[in-house]
């Protein structure tokens, strides 16, 4: 039985922290009948609470039947993904003080794109089956280190998958994926980021086989680039960028049978020949001639409105030879595939990159010496 709400938050609070009145609206879902109801809850809570703490207080004191997932409470386990005002968040990462101060009563609902089990709990089954489809384990094939020695992977090689390795499988990206809403079979941002984590791993020997599989009908080229995954990821994985890395790796390895890959390659061709997109030729170059002919009625409709610009004479950008020459230089410099994306991560990622991170040759202390806390100076 749930206990009665108590007036003081002192039991969870300790005597010192000031408290606040927190109100939230929660979508309750009855698993038996499927009935949904939006219920308002008001509790007193310490000012430092997160959304997860608020749910705990509600469950302890107001309604013990409220269902949600949790475990670590510190953004590591990935259990407490849910939506606040329609946007996927980790409940344990979401502080409530500013929301309360603004007088806002947020609406809490389960994540999207996954079946609801009860209240805020979703069935992660489809999430895990897509994860399994990526074969998320090392498939050796690398050169074995000499007997008794370790296999050393350079920091540079690990940087390729640094962000992808941070994924905690919470599903916040999947919840918001616009392509998956329209194609539930899409492998999706979390699984594909996991795929890149293995394609880019220096110890994995199956990258080409993996890329072939990830280039399936519901794979890489299903991504609609809505960037909801990058926006929502609570760990800075940037799944969309991981998908772009997989696209770049596929094209580097000549895996370009998918219409999405052909579409992408036509932009490269356009840029280095005329500078501007050769728009009218994009359809046959992407879909092939037969499919394009079947669309001729649609195309004629567009042509009447000037939407099919004539390819001849081509619309050529001034000084396009510079763009051509740049491609030659870039190709010689060899930052092909995912490496082209990785070089930008220092500036783009939500997480910090430190050049000395993981450098075993820059120890903080010399063995035998007393450690010194450099940030605060000498000890008293």
């Amino acid at each position, binding site marked *: 039985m749930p206990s009665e709400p108590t007036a003081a938050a002192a039991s969870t609070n300790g005597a010192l922290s000031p408290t606040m009145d927190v109100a939230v609206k929660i979508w309750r879902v009855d698993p038996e009948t499927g009935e949904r109801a939006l219920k308002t809850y008001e509790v007193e809570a310490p000012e430092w609470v997160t959304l997860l703490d608020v749910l705990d207080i509600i469950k302890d004191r107001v309604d013990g039947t409220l269902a949600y997932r949790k475990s670590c409470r510190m953004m590591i386990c990935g259990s407490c993904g849910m939506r606040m005002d329609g946007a996927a968040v980790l409940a344990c990462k979401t502080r409530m003080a500013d929301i309360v101060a603004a007088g806002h009563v947020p609406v809490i609902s389960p994540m999207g794109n996954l079946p609801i089990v009860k209240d805020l709990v979703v069935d992660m089954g489809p999430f895990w089956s897509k994860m399994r489809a990526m074969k998320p384990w090392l498939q050796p094939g690398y050169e074995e280190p000499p007997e008794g020695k370790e296999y050393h992977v350079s920091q540079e090689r690990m940087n390729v998958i640094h962000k992808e390795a941070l994924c905690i499988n919470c599903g916040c990206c999947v919840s918001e994926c616009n392509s998956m809403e*329209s194609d539930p079979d*899409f492998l999706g941002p979390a699984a594909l980021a996991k795929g890149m984590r293995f394609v880019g791993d220096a110890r994995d020997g199956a990258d080409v086989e993996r890329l072939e599989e990830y280039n399936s009908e519901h794979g890489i080229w299903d991504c609609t680039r809505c960037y909801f995954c990058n926006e929502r990821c609570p760990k800075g994985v940037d799944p969309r960028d991981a998908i772009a890395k997989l696209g770049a790796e596929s094209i580097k390895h000549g895996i370009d049978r998918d219409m999405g890959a052909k579409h992408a390659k036509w*932009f490269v061709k356009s840029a280095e020949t005329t500078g501007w997109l050769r728009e009218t030729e994009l359809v046959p170059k992407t879909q092939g001639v037969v499919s394009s002919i079947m669309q001729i009625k649609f195309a004629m409709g567009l042509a009447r409105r000037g*939407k099919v610009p004539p390819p001849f004479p081509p619309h050529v950008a001034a000084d396009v030879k510079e763009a051509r020459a740049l491609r030659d230089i870039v190709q010689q410099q060899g930052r092909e595939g995912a490496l082209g994306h990785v070089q930008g991560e220092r500036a783009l990622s939500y997480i910090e990159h430190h050049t000395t991170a993981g450098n075993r040759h820059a120890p903080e202390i010399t063995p035998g010496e007393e450690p010194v806390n450099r940030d605060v100076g000498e000890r008293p």
Partner: protein
Amino acid sequence: MSAATNGTALRKVAYYKGCLASLSAKELDTSTRALAPKVGLELDELESVTCCGAGDIHEAEPDYYLHLNARILAYGEATGSDTLMTVCNVCTLNLRQANHMLQNDEALLARVNANLEAVGVPPYSGAIEVKHLLWLIAEGEGYELLKQAAHKGLKGLRVAPFYGCQILRPSKLLGFEDPDRPWSLEAIIEACGGEVVDYPAKIKCCGFPIIQAREETALRELMQPIAQARDAGADAMVTPCPLCHLSLDAWQSKLNASERRENPRHEDFHMPILHLSQLIGVAAGLEASELKFKRHVVSVKPVLEKLEA
């Protein structure tokens, strides 16, 4: 220096129009040019520039993407303006992303500059900011001028704003407004005397990036905003992105055909789709030859008739 209608000096910006405004969406270019001086802008069009890669070169050959965009930024900077103006979401994200990379990584900027100089492009110092037309007129002086320019008004026309994706997300690179609660298009619709129609899918994807490779999936994405806007009583939709415009306007007939196949009682959509510059242009009294509504696939006539009534 020329002046805006109220006598204020025009603000000169480097104008990168992108592929679509040069080709299938010429109406975006003509209406933008005609509107610019009315909202205080003097457009210095960049000539020696290419496609930004539209996310496709970014995916296929990321290092080439970076160099093509660095070249655009360098020519933008060479005009002496502090702002490079875009009229497309995809151009905006691609250019801002490249700019962010170059401005925050000295070693990368040095390598790219060496390559630019090797082919005769002026080096880029990192001093230009990429801004969409929408951002230049949604607040500040641009917004004040817009209110004066939109003297003909939209007479309570019910307009559904459609943002699309790459002007909002990732907010780390775009960051003009809250990606979940944007306000800029609404402010402009109201300044023009229109009535804002709100609906949840206004920040979602139109499906365009995969409309050729995955048409069925893309059309299901496209369905959401159009259906929600109609259900909410919109007379028209407005978008800051010519790719969203192509999807919403040119693919609307395909959406209707596909919906009819699934549901024989589907009521066809006839939703007029306006570019941002056209919506303001109507309120500001631009000429038909500048608005070029005849280039739209879905007729804009019902909107014009409602405004004349």
